[in-house]
């Protein structure tokens, strides 16, 4: 039957498309809606955390660190409870990674502290002797881009109905505030002060006090949120 197609390029192309598209339709469609349902307690990222997530992506941390704990004893012993689908409901994009040159970071907020991250990003081998991770000193001087972080939060709220400004757990308090641009930026700066309070670097503390947020502060806010 296939000989016929070799002299009819149009039908040949259509047949190829059907053969190729077939698997995608069967594999991706059926569970699509179910997969994006958040687990109870999963919250959207705050503006500061999103700014940190953007730093994480910009410096391709995901090239060497996974965020996916597989259901093996060795992994749950090392990193914590294995990953559940709903925990990623607000992750756009997903950051599972494909290679562990360094350890998994899915729940790094449970066992690393702000000042550990601070030292680690400044000089990895100082906290983990033998580490082959590069230092990320430029994160201490580059300023985080709050505008783009706000833009992202605003976009996922309006386009994908990500629940900002809502009371998710029914305790009468709004869980993750976004609000208007000015309010959101002011809130992010307040959050940054809490992080900076746990850091040693005086220049960082001064910058945050002056209303500037170095990338490292945002990144640590994000890493601390991974639980």
């Amino acid at each position, binding site marked *: 039957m*296939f000989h016929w197609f*070799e*002299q009819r390029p149009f039908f*040949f*192309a259509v047949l*190829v*498309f059907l*053969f*190729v*598209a*077939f*698997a*995608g339709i069967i*594999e991706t469609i059926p*569970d*699509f809606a179910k*997969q*994006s349902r958040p687990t109870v307690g999963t919250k959207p990222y705050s503006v500061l955390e999103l700014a940190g997530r953007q730093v994480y*992506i910009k*410096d*391709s941390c995901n*090239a*060497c660190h*996974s965020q*996916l704990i*597989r*259901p*093996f004893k*060795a*992994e749950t012993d*090392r990193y914590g409870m294995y*990953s*559940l*689908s709903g925990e*990623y*409901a607000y992750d*756009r*994009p*997903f*950051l599972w*990674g494909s*290679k*562990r*040159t*360094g*350890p998994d970071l899915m729940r790094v907020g449970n066992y690393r502290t702000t000042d550990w991250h601070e030292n680690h990003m400044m000089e990895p081998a100082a906290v983990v002797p*033998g580490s*082959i*991770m*590069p*230092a990320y000193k*430029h994160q201490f001087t*580059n300023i985080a*881009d709050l505008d783009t*972080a*706000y*833009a992202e939060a*605003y*976009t*996922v709220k309006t386009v994908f109905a990500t629940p900002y400004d809502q009371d998710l757990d029914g305790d009468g308090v709004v869980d993750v505030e976004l609000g208007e641009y000015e309010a959101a930026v002011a809130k992010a700066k307040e959050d940054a002060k809490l992080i900076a309070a746990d850091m040693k670097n005086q220049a960082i503390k001064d910058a945050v006090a002056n209303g500037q947020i170095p990338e490292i502060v945002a990144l640590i806010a994000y890493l601390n949120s991974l639980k």
Partner: protein
Amino acid sequence: MQNGAQIEYDYSVAKAFTFATILFGIIGMTIGVVLALQLAFPQLNYLAGEYGTFSRLRPLHTNGVAFGFTLSGVFAAWYYIGQRVLKVSLKESPFLMAIAKLHFVLYFITILLAVVTLFMGYTTSKEYAELEWPLDILVVLWWVLWGISIFGLIGIRRERTLYISLWYFIATFIAIAMLYLFNNMEVPTALVSGYGSWLHSVSMYSGTNDALVQWWYGHNAVAFVFTTPIIALIYYFLPKESGQNVYSYKLSILAFWGLMFVYLWAGGHHLLYSTVPDWMQTMGSVMSVVLILPSWGSAINMLLTMKGEWQQLQSNTLIKFMVLASTFYMLSTIEGPIQAIKSVNAIAHFTDWIPGHVHDGVLGWVVFMIMASLFHMVPRMYKREIYSKSLMDTQFWLQTTGIVLYFTSMWIAGITQGMMWRAYDEYGSLVYSFIDTVTVLHPYYTIRAVGGLLYLIGFFMFAYNIYKTIRCGRVLDKEPVNATPVAA
């Protein structure tokens, strides 16, 4: 063609893509060696500040070799093979000629912009789909131009039946178009909110869904950038170079349609033990094993094309390149399914065995086949003889040694790391801390860097040989033919 007159083919676009292939090959592979060295010697991360770290260079390397080097090679071959197997010259259609030139220019600009934006840290973070949305639009534009070129040339063809290579070019065009469009669905945040960087976007899909779509794309970028177009190349160049007919037409058909049907399913094997539904993981795993059949079907068809003519391995270095390429294709397509078996994947996933697998595929199969294709095309496009056959032979052995060092060291490294991660002592505690599993890999990382360096040196030899051929190879008055030439 009337009166048996010779058609005068126009190779201007094929030549332009040939230069791009060599340029991006040098850039992409040099960065690859730098990355390998950085893993062995981390202090090399600080040669260019923020812009020289492993993490910033890694997407540059993958994009550079996949979409810079490989696609250039594929396009060069298309603008060479397409005219010949369809028996029409680009000269005959000013429209298609203009499309072809625009295709090259837009493509070249996109890759240059990709290098700049990735250096700056603009990335969507999805592997092999890192480019931000304005560049995605450019990619779609020149991909459509390529499609017009394929179907346009087919539309004015003189040869009634489509040669096998064309099946694979068509499949590449259609599949990548579909995969790329769906995986790169993203919302530009500045357009929605009016704030922030205009380059930034968020993915249309979230979490597990995003991963599913990404690996459906990611695995099949391997299928339709690193496999199908390269099969198109070998189905044309091996018979031309050896003077032998393709071994079996039936096997070609079976292998082609089998590959089309099965390959897309296999993406699920990247997500074993993740949060995607179990049945998808099983499906991905099973289909990956089934994939051995169509893959080996093509590979065996290529190798048996040499039946009765194996002595050409001694007399023709290009045959050596192509036979080694098909052999590495077989190795790589048995290794992949093995890694997709769930219990093996539990150890192999996240380790260096995976880059090892990728590289025996691309270094042994993709790059070897593209280099062989250029070695075949350049003397015919420029009507000059290859500058140095012995340099070609030296290059062959240097690069083969490089590949072997690369994949053997990464196999050992990957399995070592995978086993150490899961080692328990008699009290039920983990034996190694994570850093132990990193420092132990140092010797293997060093061997890999040496292997990569040998390969890179070989590539420089290749570039030099091509350059000298074009500049001062012996002028040929007619096209070189080898062995017992087949028609066309």
